[in-house]
């Protein structure tokens, strides 16, 4: 699962490592100030710089944690407030520890404000360093997440391919169809022959098509017709089907194996389980810049807990990879009964060039 879960454990670790790093910076600042002959010697400088630095660090981290917001301006205000408060508190703490009083500050011509200001100055520099570091790790994290996302989506596509392949040679379908053919060998040879021809056509086209290629609408419909013919013999009067496709759409390119799972679903879940059976209507309609392909059945409809099988997510995934946001699959209840599945894709696509 690609989600980041911050635990207390990690937070505490990060908090301590930030403090440790700040302590290192504080020491460097103390040395620097001493070299500049600022203040009352290295030891005092070190104590003050540690007090101020660590307090600022704690304040800023705590504020970040407590008042987390997405608004940059508010974040900036919170940051500056925490930094100032931290610097003041740190200076007071330093004074309390070292016993340096107001008078000493005056004697040395160093005002309290000076110290606080120096604290804020260095605090800003160090905070900038921390923020940059955070940002870099965030960007790295994002890149990593992207990579995981990409790999898992590739994996999903592969799995879907495999499942699709298995679905095409679904044992129940195959054995039942072969039983029918075997039966017809005795009773109705012509029917048996035509059923066998349909099965061969269906298996050959569905197995040989590489999923990346586009085929023409007419080719795709021929395969669906073969599939429906098989069921027509098996189900007899319980199945009626109509395929309506405008002549000018017949040569239109279309991705293979998108319609078949919808038809299969209509039969398997809609018509086969019902005593009366019903109709399947496949329609291709032009709607402005879009092409709509409807598969409607008058069967039992989709129950809330019924799985659609691999077909649906597979179709959605492929529509997304082929057309982005412009391709979609919508499912509606058909009136009075049954299910209507609509595939919507742009009429004009770059993919159209493949025919040349």
């Amino acid at each position: 699962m690609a989600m980041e879960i911050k635990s207390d454990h990690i937070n505490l670790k990060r908090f301590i490592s930030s403090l440790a790093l700040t302590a290192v910076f504080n020491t460097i600042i103390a040395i620097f100030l001493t070299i500049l002959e600022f203040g009352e010697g290295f030891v005092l400088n070190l104590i003050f710089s540690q007090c101020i630095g660590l307090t600022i660090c704690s304040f800023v981290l705590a504020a970040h944690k407590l008042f987390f917001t997405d608004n940059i301006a508010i974040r900036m205000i919170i940051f500056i407030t925490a930094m100032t408060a931290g610097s003041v508190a740190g200076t007071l703490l330093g004074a309390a520890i070292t016993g340096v009083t107001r008078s000493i500050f005056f004697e040395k011509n160093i005002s309290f404000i000076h110290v606080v200001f120096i604290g804020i100055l260095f605090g800003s520099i160090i905070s900038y360093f921390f923020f940059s570091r955070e940002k870099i790790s965030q960007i790295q994290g994002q890149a990593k997440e992207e990579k995981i996302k990409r790999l898992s989506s590739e994996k999903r596509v592969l799995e879907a391919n495999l499942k699709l392949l298995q679905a095409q040679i679904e044992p129940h379908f195959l054995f039942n169809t072969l039983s029918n053919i075997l039966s017809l060998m005795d009773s109705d040879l012509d029917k048996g022959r035509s059923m066998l021809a349909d099965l061969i056509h269906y298996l050959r086209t569905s197995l040989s098509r590489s999923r990346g290629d586009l085929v023409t609408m007419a080719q795709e419909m021929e395969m669906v017709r073969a599939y429906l013919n098989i069921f027509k013999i098996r189900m007899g009067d319980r199945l009626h089907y109509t395929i309506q496709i405008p002549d000018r759409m017949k040569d239109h390119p279309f991705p293979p194996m998108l319609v078949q799972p919808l038809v299969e679903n209509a039969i398997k879940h809609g018509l086969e389980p019902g005593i009366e059976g019903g109709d399947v209507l496949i329609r291709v309609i032009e709607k402005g810049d879009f092409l709509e392909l409807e598969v409607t059945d008058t069967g039992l409809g989709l129950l809330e807990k019924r799985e659609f099988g691999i077909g649906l997510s597979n179709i959605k995934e492929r529509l997304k990879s082929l057309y982005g946001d412009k391709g979609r699959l919508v499912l509606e209840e058909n009136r009075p009964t049954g299910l209507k599945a609509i595939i919507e894709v742009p009429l004009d696509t770059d993919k159209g060039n493949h025919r040349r």
Partner: protein
Amino acid sequence: MIQIKAIIADDEEPLRTYLRSLLSDVWPDLIICGEARNGREALELVEKHKPHIAFLDIKMPGLSGMEVAKKIGKACRVVFVTAYDRYAVEAFENEAIDYLLKPVTRVRLERAVKRLRKQIDAPHEQPQSDITEVTERILAELKEREAREYLQWIKVQRLDGILLVPVEEVCYFKASDKYTMVMTEEGESLIKKTIRELSDDLDPNQFWRIHRGTIVNLSRIAKVSRSLTGRGAMRLKDRPEILTVSRSYMHLFRQM
């Protein structure tokens, strides 16, 4: 000698015809007193003709072959016919129930017929397993499997009809009085179900409750951060709003 009667039930006409003709070859004395196209017709035929044997396809519209067998009980011997049903076949093997696999072959049918004849000639030496009890058990098992299934679809009322939204597309559900808001990447819609009713039907491996009134789809979570007050702020991948995780549900997001 009495005439042995049988019925054949299968929703696919060619298969009924085929089994009938095979039987007439293998068991010429057998009288096929009726063919049924679905489970209900099969029951009617059994009542009407009181056959000795019923050949029942398992997958039939209306009533399945197994449901028919359960209702028939001891009224006649049942032979199940199935194309591919690993689970059922396994069960039949264990319970010594007669079954035939499609496509039915002559050899296999001859063997089944031989067995049936023996059973009918000497019913006390060759009792068939109590079909009512066995099918009831198998059906209960199948039903339990079904009951374990979770909600796959959310039916959403739209102006132009009812839209079916697959649950995996839902980012989260939000309680709204007696109703529930369904939040997806594309938008939101109201359904007439309480969040409590929903939570029972959702797959707990996919949906987690994170607040009294919020159920979230795990695969749509981008990030959860914890505030010092103990509550959590959850960001989603496809929706802008930040959800609150109650303190009592934060344990779900502790270090994995």
